[in-house]
């Protein structure tokens, strides 16, 4: 098992390098720069000559390849560089955003699991029924909502009209503040989970060993509990893992709408002021999160179902 983890970790390196290269190339041709972003407000005619010293300070006067080399060299020493915007090490900028991001991703997934999995199970028990088709329409609806539209509706209904929940913001340790953003972010994985669960249950129900059990006269409820549940678990776990891994990057819109201080809103802010080192760092964190979660899913996979060999 340890060898498997080690190998998977090593496999991440080329992926990460490719990501760095892609982002580096994209942002080396992006129009606008950090310096022009300082003048974007159009006020007080910020002095261009004063700001031109910034180019030297950030090493932007050096050739592209030198800059790439310097970045990689720093990275090899676990140094993400200095943020143009805050003039602090990039890690200091990213670190406070990590926990809120992870919390939001996990809460959204929690909501998705609590609603989506039972929905999928119920739908699969009577395939083809009105209940099944209705459930699926509801589930797929979750996949069909523009997030910020849905988020705004949640805000209006639950914060303003009903007054049950705060409409925005982040309070460490407060569950009330996370509910609305988590639901807004969670509807789409909820729908995916419902769909996957239903399909998985149907597949297993039609599989030979279940048919045999049914033929032997095993009662339906017990059947569901013992055979089906365990076999579908692997599938659900995979889906959830993939989704948790992707949610950190998908949260951009929800974070912006609810003023949630996660990696996604940091990324959008940094792109708009062209704070390239932070953009690089934030993308790396999002990608690393995805890769690590996927590896953990594979490990869990092997633990649940010993027939699957890892390594």
């Amino acid at each position, binding site marked *: 098992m340890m060898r498997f983890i080690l190998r998977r970790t090593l496999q991440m390196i080329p992926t990460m390098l490719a990501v760095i290269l892609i982002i580096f190339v994209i942002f080396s041709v992006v129009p606008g720069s950090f310096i022009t972003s300082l003048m974007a407000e159009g006020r007080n005619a910020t002095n261009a000559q004063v700001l031109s010293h910034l180019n030297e300070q950030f090493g932007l006067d050096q050739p592209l390849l030198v800059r790439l080399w310097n970045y990689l060299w720093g990275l090899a020493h676990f140094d993400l560089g200095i943020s143009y915007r805050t003039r602090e090490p990039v890690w200091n900028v990213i670190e406070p955003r990590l926990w809120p991001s992870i919390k939001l991703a996990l809460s959204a997934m929690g909501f998705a699991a609590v609603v989506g999995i039972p929905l999928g199970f119920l739908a699969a028990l009577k395939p083809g029924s009105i209940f099944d088709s209705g459930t699926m329409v509801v589930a797929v609806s979750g996949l069909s909502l523009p997030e910020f539209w849905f988020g705004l509706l949640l805000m209006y209904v639950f914060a303003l009209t009903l007054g049950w929940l705060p409409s925005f913001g982040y309070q460490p340790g407060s569950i009330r503040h996370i509910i609305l953003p988590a639901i807004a972010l969670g509807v789409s994985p909820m729908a995916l989970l419902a769909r996957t669960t239903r399909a998985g249950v149907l597949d297993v129900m039609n599989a030979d060993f279940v048919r045999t059990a049914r033929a032997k006269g095993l009662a339906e409820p017990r059947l569901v509990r013992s055979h089906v549940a365990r076999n579908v678990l692997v599938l659900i776990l995979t889906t959830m893992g993939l989704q948790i891994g992707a949610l950190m990057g998908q949260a951009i819109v929800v974070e912006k709408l609810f003023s949630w201080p996660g990696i996604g809103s940091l990324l959008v*802010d940094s792109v708009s002021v062209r704070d390239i080192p932070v953009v690089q760092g934030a993308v790396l964190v999002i990608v690393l999160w995805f890769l690590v979660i996927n590896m953990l899913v594979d490990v869990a996979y092997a633990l649940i179902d010993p027939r699957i060999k890892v390594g």
Partner: protein
Amino acid sequence: MLTRLSLMAALALGTATTALAQDATPKDGGTFVFTAPYGNSITSLDITATPHTQDEIVGKALNRSLYKWNPDSGKPELDLAESVEKSADGKTYTYKLRDATFHNGDKLDADDVVWSYNRLADPKKALPGAEQMLQIEGVAEFQDGKADHISGVKKIDDKTVAITVINLADPGWNLMSNYAPIYSKDYPEDQLASKPNGLGPFKLANYVPGSKVELVKFDDYYEQGKPHLAKLDIMLMGEAAARDVAFRNGEIDANVLGPVQYEAYTQDAALKDHILEVAEVYTRNIGFNPKIEAFKDKRVRQAINYAINSDLIIQKLLKNKAYPAVSWLPTSSPAFDKDAKPYAYDPDKAKALLKEAGYETGLKFSVTATDNESWGLPIVEAIIPMLAKVGVEVTTDPVDGSVLSDKILSDNFDSYIWSNSSGPDPLKYLNCFHSGTSQTACNYVKFANADFDKLLDAAGNETDPAKQNDLLRQANNLLQEEAPVWFFNYNKAVMAYQPWVHGLKPNAMELAIQDYEDIWIDDTAPAGRK
């Protein structure tokens, strides 16, 4: 060299249209929840490292500068100095510093002033606040690398500093800037961005990047009996629709309003009595690039001004949260001509002018624009059908803020829509249209007119305030006639506040910048605030 004169004294900027409830005795204690509406994050807690209003909203609570802006009188006044003496030649100012204490317990002395200004002007640090130092003697040499410090700032004794400037203008206009505060020279510089140490009325309690800044009363603040608030929370909320919900829900105590909400709030009986309005000194405009052949012709530029129904746009899209622009200088400027009228909406005249200029058909240009609701794409969308009626085809070139300034400074545009500072100092801002001013400085439309230059040069050399003002008024009127831009509007800034909030001021420089030490909340505040 152009000089700024004491006519600034004649400036009356504070034009509050809503009287504030100025109850007699402020009450101490409680929490005020404010918002920083220009984004979901701030750049840095070190205000010298950023030129953004969003950061200034926080910096204003943490720091103090040598001077401060008085929103009521419309003038700078001494803040960290008790008194100042001007030398006979009018260029050297000697300041007696107050007894003031930094958040970490250090006492303010002359070395702090010398160190702070040298740090700001240091070219190696490239701080945006260096802008405010340029009037001081020796800063140019320091910036060019010909000197290793500012020669014009000198410590006389522990409590006395002498500052020499290069012209006759009052240095208060620069040194009042919230971007040029006084820091403690003994405090580690690398801590400034995360653990700020200022002289302001509030000190940092908790900063959640991307979410909020929580501040608490600083007990040793130099002004007796201030601040009134025990706690000040600044929420970083860029999304207007979300701010609206939060304000109505009582989660925030003050909210800078956009046009749609301005209209909604003024029509809402529960909200309309607690709205603060002020004419800010920004001019919204579409600048025409003379690189486009047609824009070289004055008649074409005038025709566009005639063809657009600005009043209707202001009424319907901006919901009257703006004043129609006449020329460049805003209505509050002393050089504003009270008799001047804006360009009338007259499509027939526009057509005639275009025909005369040879552009009856076929004129086509794009407008580079951000998505700002008051000076961005929605405005361009509104003028597209209006200009189509006079045979002019307009397309949009949507960009980020950083690309907008990039395209303008690199002369890569047909036209742009922007909001630019146009006050409080008329000479400084009219000078942006002087042919000697470069495009990268602020002559974005490369305006060059000999008569205009002559008027401005004369104004710069005029020592009699009344005569100078007269010259500036003529220049401003000439600018209207020449129409280097489409004169759209002057901003009306609007802030809604909860009924329990007192002491907000109609700051014409920027309404979101408030004197926090004067704000207090009364007994009607909800339990969570008291």
